[in-house]
């Protein structure tokens, strides 16, 4: 008897949970309302079966529970009943399958007027490529991928010269235009998934896959990797921004074509030396850093990282928060470098400065730090040398007190919380997993030993 009651309670409770649940599908932001309709049909059919069969079972348990002197019926088969149940079940299954296949046919066949965007996955970042004015993608080849050619572009292919290269995890698409995403991976499996769009697809190295959708609502939608891709899987995030057409066009124009990236002039160290005078006041004549002024060592840090951080300061990704007074002093300094050329020049000068290891100031238990560093090594390298392809800066030989401060900033959310600081957010995930200040010191002490 309690069992029958329990079954009834669970059935009713499940229904209540279903209808009261605040956790349900996100608001749809694409054309795939038919997927939602198929889900609704499936809910009605399966919901009916769930309620009917379980309540019938509960009723049977109440009615036919053991009583003194009771004897069960002897009823081995009932061909007619079994046939009826078979036919009814088949009809129910067909009612769910038929609309499903109809919608799938739409998903498989991409509309002719769809624009194409290539989404690239790698551990643990997104980047994108657009076909440019000619509407055609140039050849790419994984074997050509280097730090200077992260997309593996074939330099000899004329179709590729106007391809627009987006080295950011954020991609924009125009509203009410069908968009086909061509999906490629540089390393392992990934998956392109935006909850509000409903559709998703794996990225597979060595082949190209696709999905398509027509965005129907303006907004920024979080892009998640949903195929396990290693220890940074949960940090592999990006964004799809649905724009008006004009905003989309402007966004495309803000990124360089492949030809433009090739033509970009290298920085001029001699010119940069003059501009560096401003920096030297805090960071030191030789870029060695000054703890008293809270200025980290610059010499020996990789050019791409210095450039990205100067840009972050300029764009408010760093140094814009009241709880980050030190960052706030850097932000206006960064803004004095008005052009890309100016940034390149200063960095070219910094590259000429002598790279002497910064003195150790943080003490901790190296062996504890070594265990923790195993995770860091996936991106920053076993020697802490930094890996450009992983968007991970050099750690070893740099100012350790600064490193410790930044880990604490990431942990506290002072750094890495800006909505477009995608790489900072990744580091935030890692820093938050560290338990306390002692753990940070142990880790930094180990990095000092590298």
């Amino acid at each position: 008897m309690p069992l029958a009651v329990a079954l009834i309670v669970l059935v009713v409770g499940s229904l209540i949970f279903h209808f009261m649940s605040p956790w349900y599908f996100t608001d749809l932001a694409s054309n795939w309302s038919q997927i939602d309709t198929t889900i609704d049909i499936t809910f009605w059919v399966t919901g009916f079966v769930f309620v009917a069969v379980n309540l019938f079972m509960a009723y049977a348990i109440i009615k036919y529970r053991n009583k003194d002197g009771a004897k069960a019926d002897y009823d081995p088969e009932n061909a007619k009943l079994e046939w009826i149940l078979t036919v009814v079940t088949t009809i129910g299954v067909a009612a769910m399958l038929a609309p499903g296949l109809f919608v799938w046919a739409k998903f498989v066949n991409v509309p002719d007027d769809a624009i194409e965007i290539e989404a690239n996955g790698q551990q643990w970042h997104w980047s994108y490529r657009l076909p440019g004015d000619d509407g055609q993608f140039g050849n790419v080849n994984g074997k050509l991928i280097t730090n200077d050619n992260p997309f593996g572009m074939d330099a000899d292919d004329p179709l590729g010269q106007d391809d627009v290269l987006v080295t950011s995890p954020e991609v924009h698409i125009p509203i009410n235009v069908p968009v086909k995403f061509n999906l490629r991976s540089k390393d392992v499996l990934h998956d392109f998934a935006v909850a509000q769009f409903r559709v998703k697809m794996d990225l597979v190295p060595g082949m190209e896959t696709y999905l398509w959708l027509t965005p129907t609502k303006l907004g920024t939608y979080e892009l998640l990797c949903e195929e396990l891709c290693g220890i940074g899987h949960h940090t592999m995030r990006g964004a799809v921004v649905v724009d008006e057409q004009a905003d989309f066009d402007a966004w495309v124009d803000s990124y360089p074509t492949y030809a433009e990236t090739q033509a970009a002039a290298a920085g001029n160290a001699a010119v940069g030396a003059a501009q560096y005078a401003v920096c030297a006041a805090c960071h030191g004549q030789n870029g060695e850093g000054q703890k008293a002024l809270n200025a980290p060592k610059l010499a020996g840090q990789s050019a791409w990282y210095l450039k990205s951080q100067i840009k972050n300061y300029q764009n408010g990704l760093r140094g814009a928060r009241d709880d980050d007074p030190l960052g706030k002093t850097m932000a206006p300094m960064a803004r004095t470098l008005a052009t890309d050329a100016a940034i390149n020049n200063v960095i070219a000068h910094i590259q000429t400065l002598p790279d002497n290891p910064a003195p150790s100031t943080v003490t901790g238990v190296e062996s504890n730090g070594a265990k923790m560093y195993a995770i860091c090594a996936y991106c920053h390298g076993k020697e802490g040398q930094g890996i450009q392809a992983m968007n991970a800066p050099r750690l070893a030989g740099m100012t350790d007190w600064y490193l410790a401060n930044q880990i604490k900033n990431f942990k506290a959310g002072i750094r890495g919380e800006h909505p477009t600081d995608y790489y900072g957010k990744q580091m935030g995930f890692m820093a938050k997993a560290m338990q306390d200040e002692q753990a940070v010191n142990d880790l930094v002490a180990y990095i000092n030993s590298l």
Partner: protein
Amino acid sequence: MAYVSIADRDHEIEHHDPQTFITKYIWSQDHKVIAIQYGLTAIFVGLIALALSVMMRLQLGFPDSFSFITPESYYQFVTMHGMIMVIYLLTALFLGGFGNYLIPLMCGSRDMVFPYMNMLSYWVYLLSVIILLISFFVPGGATGAGWTLYPPQAIAPGTPGIELGIILMLASLAVFIVAFTMGGLNYVTTVLQARCRGMTLMRLPLSVWGIFMATILGLLAFPALLVSAIMMLLDKTILTSFFMPAMISAGEQLSHTGGSPVLFQHLFWFFGHPEVYIVALPAFGIVSDILSTHARKNIFGYRMMVWAILAIGGLSFIVWAHHMYVSGMNPYFGFFFATTTLIIAVPTALKVYNWVLTLWQGNIHLRVPMLFAIGFIFTFIHGGLTGIFLGNVVVDLPLSDTYFVVAHFHMVMGVSPVLVVFGAIYHWFPKMTGKMYNETLGKWHFWMTFFGTYSIYLPMHYLGFLGVPRRYFSMGTTDFMPESAHTLNTSITISAIFVAVTQLIFLYNMIVSLRSGKKSDPNPWGAATLEWQTPDNPPKHGNWGHHLPEVHRWAYDYSVPGYPDDFIPQNVPASAEAPAGRDHGIHH
């Protein structure tokens, strides 16, 4: 030469009783001892996997609170939990455990056809378990590739355990498959060749049918896993490129070129989907027998149940790519695999109807095994229906790789079979040990496990609807996840810990009942199947004393009209029954 069945040659065969402790309990060739060896080993590794699941739930429920849970260890917990539960617990327990124990007893045989190979099967299985457990302690630790071991990530930098963990994992799987094959050939041959006189195939209890069909599936499916494990081992150790395409790692080119990651997925799921039914079919069979016995009523639609087992087994080989709708395989496959997948729902639904109709007009005794059996029907209906969501290719698009998938397969392949395992252990405990378990503790165990698991997995489906991805070490701030979703995760973790702790009641009950439980009646449930008709309880080596039983009826003669008892054992001759005998128990 004319074929003479083993049963007819029984008097010519000499039966040796094992003499020493070692041959009786360690290097035993007795199927019942081997069954218990299999069962205890499987439960032991299952407890390890249970502990691993608690650790991963701790991270999900209370992120960033435990310094010993790093992304590396988290993915190692996830991987080893899944692999142990599916292969080393459920497969081993249902086939090596229950298969070994029940087949000879239910078929009326003295033992498995190849007892020595049966013994080897267990020891090779134990070796595979040891190799698996060693992988926790090697440099780099166990593999963290996820239980599906998808390449390239399983053997590429960025994944824990690519040093030795993955090698030991693959080696352990290969060894397990050797063990399974030795056992499996035995089970199939025994069912086909060693049934006692009168035991026609259509008189076999459904437990045997389920285990028999599951074993055939295993013998056909595991080779696909074996070749994928061997090819991946080669990719890993001598840098072949079966599954490894040209790829970059940390900015460097690896030396692989031309392999296909999707090929691995086809091979894996060609094994992996039948594997679901390797676990499910024995559960289907066992639950049928428990329901019939404790409802004192024949199983409804026996022939339909047998045909459904065969149909499900056959269909299970042509649905595998429904695990791969978003894998990047040719999307036109979706039409075929969605159709076959939803077709398989029909025989499966019929089995559920027949279980419920078995209860109808029964005389239901709600003893502990029956509670678990009915609990199974409820959770299996739930898990089966959510399977229809995922099997229907477009509905899978938003739900694939989310917590909906995790909730679905735990409901259908975790909770449901485990409820059957518990039900079966309680049901046959008096036969295996000669002792009775504590009924009150058994009921507590059921209620806490049943409600506890439902409170884990019902809400988890809704995280999936919301779009929360599975296999995330932590969610952090995700813009579509409300704060309440994190609270829900915490409550799921609390339920999971509750369920894990609850299993101590089961262990306590088993140990105490084994030592000081009441002596059991040889047939406490009044069951009609042969294993309850043995001359000794528990049955001795050789099972049947001097004479093999002879079967005269099907396994479900319960509450036959006009017969004084409410059951007629299978070995009771037709003439002993008052009114007209019912051979197959089927009205013509």
